[in-house]
């Protein structure tokens, strides 16, 4: 092997390797810090932290159930709304849209992801929440009011509003990843279906989507990962109530928003430690979800390696 090349490569490798290692170390330190700092809370409340619904900073009794519940429900709600939209956008952009429209449209959708979440939150407070209260909630309670989901008074700030805001915020990532995944589907899949006499709709439904299925699923989970960690916009519209309620009209709270709300003014050690434990739980959930999503997307891209349009 060429000596000169070897030493140059070695330096290059060492430098970039060091940068990569920094991120790993940083992630590890973050994880460790959250774990260590939450020690007091874990020792005090044990597993009861996950199942207790009392969160009382005055009496220093902490349980995370209302926040775990709020995070999971609002994120599922967001998926329920965002997935059909994202899939529609992805299919339109990759299969149907005229060539001229594709780039500007996907650009605009990705731009939506660049809006700061506090701006989306403000829009949520002043436009979306009153809209949902005045126009969406009344028909829901009139026609679907027999379901516990749509009972009780609606003041604008609610689990439902939080879910809708989250849906808007995850549509860009879910739709753009889905679009990329659909574009990796080889052209011969489509040609084969068309040759057998399938219509455009049938081609997409039979030949394209099943092929991209696991990748789309990955995109959805990526969106879910984004939804559970989203803080500012949700905090502003979810109502921040620590009550677990079966109704989507009730105010609720999420793990990320209780941290954002209470961390800066938390002075007692146990309060801080409990917030740290919520942060730790959130990190663990996000890591699991993101790894799962990456594996699914990566599996597909590897099989079809380089098939992007």
């Amino acid at each position, binding site marked *: 092997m060429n000596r000169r090349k070897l030493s140059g490569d070695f330096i290059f490798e060492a430098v970039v390797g060091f940068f990569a290692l920094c991120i790993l170390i940083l992630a590890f330190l973050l994880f460790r810090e959250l774990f260590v700092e939450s020690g007091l809370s874990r020792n005090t409340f044990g597993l009861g932290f996950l199942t207790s619904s009392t969160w009382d900073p005055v009496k220093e009794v902490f349980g995370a159930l209302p926040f775990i519940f709020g995070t999971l429900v609002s994120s599922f709600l967001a998926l329920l709304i965002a997935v059909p939209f994202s899939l529609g956008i992805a299919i339109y952009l990759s299969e149907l849209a005229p060539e001229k429209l594709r780039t500007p449209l996907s650009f605009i959708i990705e731009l939506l992801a660049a809006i700061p979440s506090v701006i989306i939150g403000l829009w949520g407070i002043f436009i979306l929440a009153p809209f949902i209260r005045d126009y969406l909630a009344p028909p829901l309670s009139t026609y679907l009011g027999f379901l516990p989901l749509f009972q009780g008074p609606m003041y604008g700030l609610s689990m439902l509003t939080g879910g809708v805001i989250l849906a808007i915020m995850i549509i860009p990532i879910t739709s753009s990843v889905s679009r990329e995944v659909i574009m990796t589907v080889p052209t011969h899949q489509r040609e084969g279906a068309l040759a057998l006499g399938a219509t455009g709709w049938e081609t997409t439904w039979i030949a394209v989507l099943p092929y991209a299925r696991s990748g789309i699923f990955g995109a959805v989970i990526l969106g879910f990962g984004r939804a559970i960690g989203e803080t500012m916009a949700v905090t502003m519209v979810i109502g921040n109530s620590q009550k677990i309620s079966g109704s989507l009209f009730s105010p609720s709270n999420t793990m990320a928003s209780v941290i954002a709300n209470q961390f800066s*003014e938390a002075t007692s050690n146990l309060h801080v430690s409990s917030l740290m434990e919520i942060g730790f739980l959130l990190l663990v959930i996000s890591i699991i979800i993101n790894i799962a999503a990456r594996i699914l997307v990566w599996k597909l891209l590897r099989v079809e390696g380089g098939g992007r349009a």
Partner: protein
Amino acid sequence: MNRLKILNILIIFILAGVLLAGCVSKQPTEITLNGAGATFPYPLISKWSSEYNKIKPNIQINYQSVGSGAGIKQITEKTVEFGASDAPLTEKEFANLSGILQIPESIGAVVVAYNLPGIEKGVKLSGDVVADIFLGKITKWNDPNIVSLNPGITFPGKDIIVTERSDGSGTTFVFTDYLSTVSPDWKSKIGKGKSVSWPVGLGGKGNEGVAGLLSQNPYSIGYIELAYAKNQNISYAYIKNKAGHFIEPTLETTASAAAGAVSALPAGDASWSSVSIVDAAGDNSYPIGSFTYFLVYKDQTDQTKGKILAEYLWWAVHDGQKYSSDLLYVPLPNDVISLNEKTIRLMNYNGQPLI
């Protein structure tokens, strides 16, 4: 010869540079004091910083409004020269911070704000009624307990929409301190704190969050800082004070509450955990208010910075007070200023007083 020209220019630049550097070095070096803490006094402290910089151009006061909790943490770890808190240190916090001084620098009031279409002004409430509303016991505007306090006002039979601060805040501390003082029921069930476990209601983040909830939900009630309510023209209630009068929240009525509490104030280096000016005595005292505090160490470890800090604090509690009213903060009563003088004189470097 071109090269010669360039050389000449270079020499001129270098000479100019040396001369300039000489001039600059004659000026006193710039010193920055860092502070961190409560968001409530931020507009006042930042006004002070810019005014003080006009008097002493080489001194920068850099205040980060990161919240009282974070301010207390930073002063504990000595990453800042001064902290600021809306609530006095608790016994526990005070015990952890040996040699800390608490210097009240201003006074804030909290108003009970409401949105009642057609009733913009003049609603009167008493402490126990406010407590019962926030406990969820009084749920309708035409509840007999509200109606009996307000002869001449016709209340709608609507549900009361309760709103509160979702973020930990000094405003919540003052409000729940008041409710704990006037309502035994509140004291035993909820207590006082910067974040509490609210039995009912919607939570908004910050004064603006609560104000947003109020403006968008007719028949709602909430609590916000006096300054914020005045600036945003939000309706607020007259509150019944200890003497039995219904008092409008203003700078004067809040100052009157503070003046009434002065005789009972502890020394600056003692614990202030039980200090409270809620439900204060006095005919004209508005009952929901609080001091907001600077936190500094008695024993300073840097002579220059310590001296500058002591001078700044001295200025803030004297000359600085004249900027309070315009920003809707309550100026300190004279008795509190003289108490603060004693406290600031305790600041020392190796036993040498700094002022």
